[in-house]
């Protein structure tokens, strides 16, 4: 079932959590709401679920207006960040809750719960209590509970936030596979861009209650709409430069420290660490001198930290291991850096 969010706004006192959000979610897709804390992503999710009321605007489920319907009548599955399992109930009763409040007969509940526990691969844990489960198991029970009454929409609030790194990785792969199996329209909230890209069909980047960009993961990553999205989606190097013949060219290190979106001007150029090359020879046009200060060779990608010899400005470069071996650079060596690709963003984005 598709979901439309039309002109939705929400304020908490003076704080504007959502500012006229418009969003279309196609049926059967898995969408990630991505943004830093305070960007309004959880508020938007709760408004879609009916757990929060929008100050203005409308929420439509497949052309049906549900804005004034309570969460109880919307038939959505909601997975809470901290699972919110009923701690005085067994796993079976937790999963069965949504069915028994709807008055399903006992045998059908038994059958459906068995089916769901099989789906989440936790058969045999029916009589355990939430306190006796691991974090990953609790998360899956929460998911099974949300799916029990065959909701039209599945909403997940930071579903993997409270898990350790390894379990998180497993569960997100599993969620993707599960979604491919059952095809329920799903929206999940995350602040982890990697998670959003790994799982979602479509990524919606939010900041300060506004949508900054939305689209398929590859498109958003390859063509960030602005400096904020670029920075949020991964590490970025900032340079001073100018646009010459329609192409950005680096002229020097930027004096801007930290987040590039804090200070933005047309002559600021953004380069991802893997879009920089290290050269040993004499300086070509657009290359900058740099001193290698740290090399992190762990894994297939070698991360090299460099510093401007005449200032404090730092640059990160990522090379493949083969390229690193070929260069044979060492700490303290003077080299040149040369961007393979660079970006400028239009000035209307000034904050």
């Amino acid at each position, binding site marked *: 079932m598709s979901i439309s969010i039309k002109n939705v706004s929400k304020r908490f006192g003076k704080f504007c959590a959502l500012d006229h959000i418009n969003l279309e979610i196609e049926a059967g897709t898995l969408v990630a709401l991505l943004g830093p804390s305070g960007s309004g992503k959880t508020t938007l999710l709760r408004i879609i679920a009916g757990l929060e009321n929008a100050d203005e605007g409308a929420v439509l489920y497949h052309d049906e207006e549900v804005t004034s319907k309570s969460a109880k009548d919307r038939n959505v599955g909601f997975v809470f960040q901290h699972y919110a399992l*009923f701690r005085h109930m067994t796993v079976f009763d937790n999963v069965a*809750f949504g069915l028994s*409040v709807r008055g399903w007969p006992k045998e059908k509940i038994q059958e459906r719960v068995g089916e769901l526990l099989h789906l989440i691969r936790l058969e045999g844990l029916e009589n355990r209590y939430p306190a006796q489960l691991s974090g990953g198991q609790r998360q899956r029970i929460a998911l099974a509970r*949300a799916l029990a009454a065959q909701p039209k929409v599945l909403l997940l609030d930071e579903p993997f936030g409270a898990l350790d790194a390894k379990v998180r990785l497993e569960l997100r792969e599993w969620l993707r596979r599960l979604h491919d199996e059952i095809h329920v329209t799903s929206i999940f909230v995350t602040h982890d861009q990697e998670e959003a890209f790994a799982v979602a069909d479509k990524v919606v980047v939010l900041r300060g209650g506004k949508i900054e960009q939305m689209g398929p993961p590859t498109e958003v990553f390859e063509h960030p709409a602005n400096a904020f999205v670029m920075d949020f989606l991964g590490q970025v190097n900032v340079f001073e430069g100018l646009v010459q013949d329609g192409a950005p060219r680096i002229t020097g290190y930027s004096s801007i420290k930290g987040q590039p979106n804090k200070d933005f001007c047309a002559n600021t150029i953004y380069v991802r660490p893997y879009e920089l090359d290290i050269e040993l020879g004499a300086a070509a046009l657009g290359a900058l001198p740099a001193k290698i200060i740290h090399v992190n060779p762990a894994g297939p990608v070698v991360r090299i930290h460099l510093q401007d010899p005449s200032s404090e400005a730092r640059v990160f470069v990522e090379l493949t291991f083969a390229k690193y071996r070929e260069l044979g650079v060492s700490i303290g060596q003077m080299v040149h850096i040369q961007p393979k690709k660079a970006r400028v963003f239009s000035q209307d984005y000034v904050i």
Partner: protein
Amino acid sequence: MALDPQSQIPVVKRRPQDPKWVRVFLTISALFVVLLIIGIPVLHVFFRAFENGVGSYLKSLFGNANTRHSILLTLSIAPRAVLLNLIFGLAAAWLIARFRFPGRTILLTCIDLPLAVSPVVAGLVFVLMFGMQGWFGAWLADHNLQVLFGTPALVLATSFVTLPYIVREIIPVLEAYGEEEELAAVSLGANGWQMFWRITLPNIRWALLYGIILCNARAMGEYGAVYVVSGRVSGMNDTMPLRVEKLFQEYDMPGAFALASVLTFVALITLVLKTYLEKNLMPKHGTESAGQK
């Protein structure tokens, strides 16, 4: 296993650093005070009650029609006061723990008022309201309704004095559990009633029971407020504490102590239950901490 003495890390405890005489002195004085002002009087009540044997004890309790009536009256008033406070307590605790509204702090303070105000004043308030010279007195008399000196006034005065006990026990527990489980229940299709009976009530059941027990103990023992609104007519509106005092004034020592021993016994049972329940009050660790947004 023999360890090199030098490799052993000395176990440092803070407490034994206080001089021994300080610890002994403090322990003995604490025990002495407890024995003097609590232990001996309580034992004395039972000693005096059973002084002349069990037969005489039962006779002074149940042989006297007025004493019997006072026991029944208290047994009928306390549960009603508890019930009123239960309904009010659940509603008020829910409101205070789950919502932020103007006047919330004032409501909280008002709930604590009965703890601060003298019960006699509470009783006087009801006399002022329902007495013949009071606001509703004439109207009630016209409609032939007896409030003051009757059971209604006794229940109201008792409820007033015991008002904070149940609310105060539930609020912290509701806050500790947070509202996520309740929201989860609603998102799963539960209506308000189903949510209350199946999620909220099971979570607060021990706190609720704890509050009921304390409230009941206080309701049975209430003297000041009840003294003012009751007519103190033996066999009509004398409750147990009032009856104890009356028997005492009438120099019926066996009767007074027998009835007092019943009240003391209720108190002891309350203490035992309270100690047992205290362990179960708060959410256990192991499940996630309540997510507060």
